[in-house]
């Protein structure tokens, strides 16, 4: 920790980026896991622009193997990952955002993240139109063609269950209650894979710049 270690790290693989020891302290990840994420980050952030930052096109390329694929949710997730709102994802943002998806991250954090994700216009509520828009977008993406009536029916039904005070929008507390009652809804907020990354990407083992005392 401290000065000595960040100096060591600058000599190591991730020069110029945040110290893995610090990121590990702030997140659920171990130092080794942060180093694995760095390997992954390096790959994604050099796929098109080679500037060590993840651009939206690179994010789409990594997710869909296609940098031109327009996708509502990839856009939303990118915007939420971009904590500093400067149009790119740096390594610190990458690690802190992926932390939400760690299997051991508290449910409350996942619920809050999902709310921000679905609150498309950032109004502090999930509105009926937003939900309708998302369902239509998803169905179109999967080439599932459902009649407008069927979609209306599904959205109505959902609002009946979630919008407890029937004001036509879902507020954070209603969302919390709804998500706790339907934990399956948070399935995409957890990447079981994050538990096994040290073994899936063992490249870091020879590149590790972490000092002895920090592991």
């Amino acid at each position, binding site marked *: 920790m401290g000065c000595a270690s960040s100096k*060591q790290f600058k000599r*190591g693989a991730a020069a110029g980026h945040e110290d893995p020891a610090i990121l590990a302290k702030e997140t659920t990840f*171990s*130092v*080794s896991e942060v*180093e694995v994420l760095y390997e*992954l980050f390096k790959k994604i952030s050099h796929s098109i622009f080679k500037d060590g930052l993840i651009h939206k096109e690179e994010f789409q390329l*990594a*997710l*869909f193997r296609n940098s031109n694929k327009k*996708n*509502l949710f*990839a856009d939303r*997730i990118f915007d939420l990952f971009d904590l500093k709102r400067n149009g790119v994802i740096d390594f610190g943002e990458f690690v802190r955002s992926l932390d939400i998806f760690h299997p051991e991250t508290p449910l409350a954090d996942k619920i809050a993240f999902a709310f921000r994700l*679905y609150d498309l216009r950032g109004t502090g509520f999930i509105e009926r139109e937003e*939900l309708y828009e*998302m*369902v239509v977008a*998803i*169905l179109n*993406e*999967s*080439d*599932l*063609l*459902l*009649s407008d009536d*069927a979609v209306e*029916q*599904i959205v109505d*039904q*959902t609002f009946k*269950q979630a919008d407890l005070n029937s004001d036509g929008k879902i507020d954070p507390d209603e969302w919390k209650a*709804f998500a706790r*009652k*339907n*934990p*399956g*809804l*948070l*399935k*995409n907020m957890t*990447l079981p*894979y994050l538990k*096994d*990354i*040290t*073994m*899936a*990407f*063992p*490249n*870091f*083992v*020879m590149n*590790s710049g*972490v000092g*002895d005392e*920090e*592991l």
Partner: protein
Amino acid sequence: MEDRYKMGMLLGEGSFAKVYLAVDNSTGEEVAIKVMEKEKLIKLGAAQQIKREIAVMQRLRHPNVVRLHEVMANKKRIYVVMEYVPGGPLYWQLRRQSRDNRAGLREADARRFFQQLISALAYCHARGVYHRDIKPENLLIDKNGDLKVADFGLSALADTARKEALFHTVCGTPLYGAPEVFTRRGYDGAKADVWACGVVLFVLTAGRKPFPDDNINNLYSLICRSEYHCPSTFSIELVRLLHRLLHPDPARRISIPQIMEMRWFKKGFKEISYYVDNNDRLHKLDGSDKLELDDSDDMFPPSPSTSEYSISVVRTLRGTGGMHTSASAPALTELNNVSFQPRMRRLKSLNAFDIITSSPSFDLSGLFEERGEKMRFVSDASVSVIISKLEEIAGMVSFMTRTKECQVSIEATKNGQIGALAISAKVFELTPELIMIEVCKKAGDIAEYRQFCDNELKPGLRCLVAEIRENNDAVECSA
């Protein structure tokens, strides 16, 4: 490191690694941690291989293979966290036997260990992983007296360490190396493993080494001519098997599938059926064990408000050809019966967020691996029609199916081996009239999965949905 694991005593020491007992602070579980010096690995030229092999090893899930839990590293060292097997290496048992003045294990006991060793190797070889360093030190015995093979996938190290040993004879006896291992640059890992199993089997039954290693030069010539003598206590069948295992020509040496066809091997061999639960733990299914497949890692974990279905990733490990035993059959039959009984629970109905959540475009796992290749279909046929259609499609290509409530698991066997491909198909209610079928790959090769989807599943389901479409224009189908 310290806040994750509490390091304990030294369990063992090899040429390139030390193994410590440790306790996982978060679970209290005992683990074994292998510590390797990076400098040494680089000197041995094994740095590249170790990375590749860790990646391969983490995918192995077999009751007779030691599990890899996690890998950590700093500048100097690599830490490989593995399952701890409390019974220690197999050779302790041998020593105990020799203390009792018995030469070797009883043939039946040796056979049991040998069967478990071969079934582990069959599984790993089918996945392209070779051990290359089979020896009693790497064969551990768990608390149930079952064998577990350690150090799978660290074979690159084994090779380099062996080369070192050849020149320096510091560590690692070459006793278990096949002739071609010493003489050739590249050799067939499968056949070299078979040879080593032959030596292990000999050691287990005879209580001594087949090739005396007091003189290293003499040892090589004995190995290359495969010159050994069986004790008179060996059964004829055992002698024959050893002869084929220890054939000096790798091309003429017996293969793993052939071993599994030998009468000596088949005696009392039980097919091992097991499944991987949501915590990624292995569960063995013997006749007594009830098959509990409820798997809440799934899309919709049980909740009081909705009814639930479960997903099963059942892998059946069997030998080749006709070696199917019925060890697991009762439990599976029982499952099949449940599926169409009236007590089938209400269909899970999807809300708008379910649809959003389960969308493939929302799945960040694409950042880490090839995408799961999820497919969804909409139909207005009844659940039972859809389920029998799925079973019929799988049946056409002789894939196994298991149906539980609104979930069909489809499994394929590859080369007469293990259930290599596992697919799950789930049925949900979209609206009272519409049903969604969701198909995704649970395990196995992506190309094989696509082939099944394109050639069997899509045409099969399409015809079901097309038929509906004739009667009802509202329903569309897509892949």
